[in-house]
């Protein structure tokens, strides 16, 4: 055996089994989201008023409802598969929005200081002191619910966290010699910020983003649960559970399956996030 192979083997043995398991779970759920039209046995919105609230394993004609049917006779399995899209898409996009807005504002505040900093950081205070849920309810009251609005609401309530991190990091990086050098050489602020500052603060920002991703999944589910997120009949695990709650005694499967998947998704994201953080952040503790 060559030394190259030995080297590769030892690197793989450093990844604990738990991480592998969790990564597989995450991969499955991502696959559910990406390949939903091919994986789902039937149209998730197809109602069958004669087959309402049937238990898992119920078969009618050529169709077997592996996860049972909901209150309109729709296949719970198909809805769960399509529901993965809502959870992942909303979480990913809202983290993207928060990151872009938050990091930009943080860098600007940290670079220009003075009034810009005061203005931006006070805005951060204001935004952080309104609970996200209340802001979401308010926004929905004014603008109505919907996928895009949900992403914007979630993105725009969480950006302050990124701003704080980006601000603090920018302050530290701003004094580094090579940054000072570019400044003296006449480089414009935008160029410095995006080409030099940004790569250096990416680490801590990524740490925040991984933590936020799991939280965004939970928030989307919570808002859909309250009826403020993804609108029926479009499936979202939160909204399916919201309806299923009324039927939890008679048809536990409507809550159980989306709930299990939601839990598995968030759990996996959190475990992976922790592990990534341990490797990215030299200051945190390893297992």
């Amino acid at each position, binding site marked *: 055996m060559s030394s190259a192979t030995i080297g590769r083997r030892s690197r793989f043995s450093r990844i604990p089994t738990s991480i592998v398991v969790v990564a597989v779970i995450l991969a499955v759920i991502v696959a559910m989201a990406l390949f939903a039209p091919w994986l789902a046995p039937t149209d998730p919105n197809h109602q069958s008023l004669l087959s309402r609230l049937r238990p898992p394993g119920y078969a009618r004609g050529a169709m077997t409802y592996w996860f049972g049917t909901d209150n309109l006779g729709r296949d719970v399995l198909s809805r769960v598969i399509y529901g993965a899209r809502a959870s992942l898409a909303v979480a990913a996009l809202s983290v993207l929005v928060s990151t872009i807005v938050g990091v930009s504002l943080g860098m600007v505040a940290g670079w220009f200081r003075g009034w810009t900093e005061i203005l931006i950081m*006070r*805005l951060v*205070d*204001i935004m*952080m*002191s*309104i*609970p*996200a*849920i*209340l802001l979401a*309810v*308010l*926004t929905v*009251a*004014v603008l109505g619910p919907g996928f895009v609005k949900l992403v914007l609401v979630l993105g725009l309530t969480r950006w302050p966290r990124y701003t704080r991190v980006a601000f*603090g990091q920018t*302050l*530290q990086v701003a004094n580094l010699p090579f940054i000072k050098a570019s400044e003296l050489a006449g480089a414009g602020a935008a160029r410095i910020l995006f080409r030099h500052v940004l790569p250096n603060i990416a680490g801590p920002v990524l740490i925040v983003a991984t933590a936020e991703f*799991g939280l965004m999944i*939970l928030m989307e*589910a*919570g808002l859909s*649960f*309250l009826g403020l997120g993804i609108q029926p009949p479009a499936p979202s695990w*939160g909204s399916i*559970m919201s309806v299923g*709650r009324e039927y*939890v*005694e008679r048809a*536990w499967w409507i*809550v159980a399956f989306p*709930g299990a998947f*939601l*839990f598995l998704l*968030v*759990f996996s994201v*959190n*475990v992976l996030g*922790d592990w990534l953080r341990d490797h990215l952040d030299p200051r*945190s*503790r390893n297992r």
Partner: protein
Amino acid sequence: MLRYATNRLIQAVIAIFGVLTIVFVVMHLSGDPTLLLVPQGASPEMIAELRHQLGFDQPIFVQYLEYLKGLAHFDFGMSVVQRAPAIDIVMSRLPYTIELAAGALVVAIGVGIPVGILMATRRGGFLERLLAAFVLTGQSIPTFLSGILLIFVFAVKLRWLPTSGIGGWQALVMPSIALGAISMSTFARMVRISMLDELGKDYVRAGLARGLSLGSVVFRHVLRNASIPVITIAALEIGNLLAGAVIIETVFAWPGIGQLAIQSIQSRDFLVVQVIVLLISFTYIATSVLADVVYVVVDPRIRLAR
């Protein structure tokens, strides 16, 4: 020090003001409650008359000034839905949310801290992995799901606890657990990290070398030093708890201000919403200012990035 504190205070007041204005504008943009108050058969003239009587036909700027004028006299206005002072309505429901938050904090601290300590002191063992999984589970279950499951198992099936609402300490158990679960994870992790930090320090090794047991080192010195970041986290978690209370109060029919907030937004009871938002943001800002100040006071080594 004093200058710093007053500075923060002024900034806090500005922040509260900003919150108030944003919420006021957003709420008024969504329309007024007149249509929600009248019987279905009301004629357009009746609706317009009531709208005028309640003052909603005035331009938004005028309404805003009226509101500020009232605030200057500590008059928070009358709820148009309940025809009672908004402040009274909110204050009558506040104790329930405080009770819930206290219960959740008890769960979070009472479970989180011991778990965090154990995880730090029993590193690498089976117990640590078990507790780590436990902590992760607490962080990954959505609050409404744990609420639904708890109700289903302990109230409906086992009949050990009441299904909903307030009613003595039994009714407080499930909502506290559901609400405290995520905070519990945060505390556990925080305590673990901060203890690991401390345990690696020289004075610990010195103490152990002198023959002190791990337990006494932990209790006498490590905990005290590790508690500083925990205190600041606790202050900030209160804000998170208030936010999570909204969902928990809905699931458990707990008549606190979270439930009141949602109901008031839906019924366009502006003034009640304003009071609640004022209260929550005041609490959040106060606790974060307090946390900052405590942090600086307690650990003189920390200098702020100014």
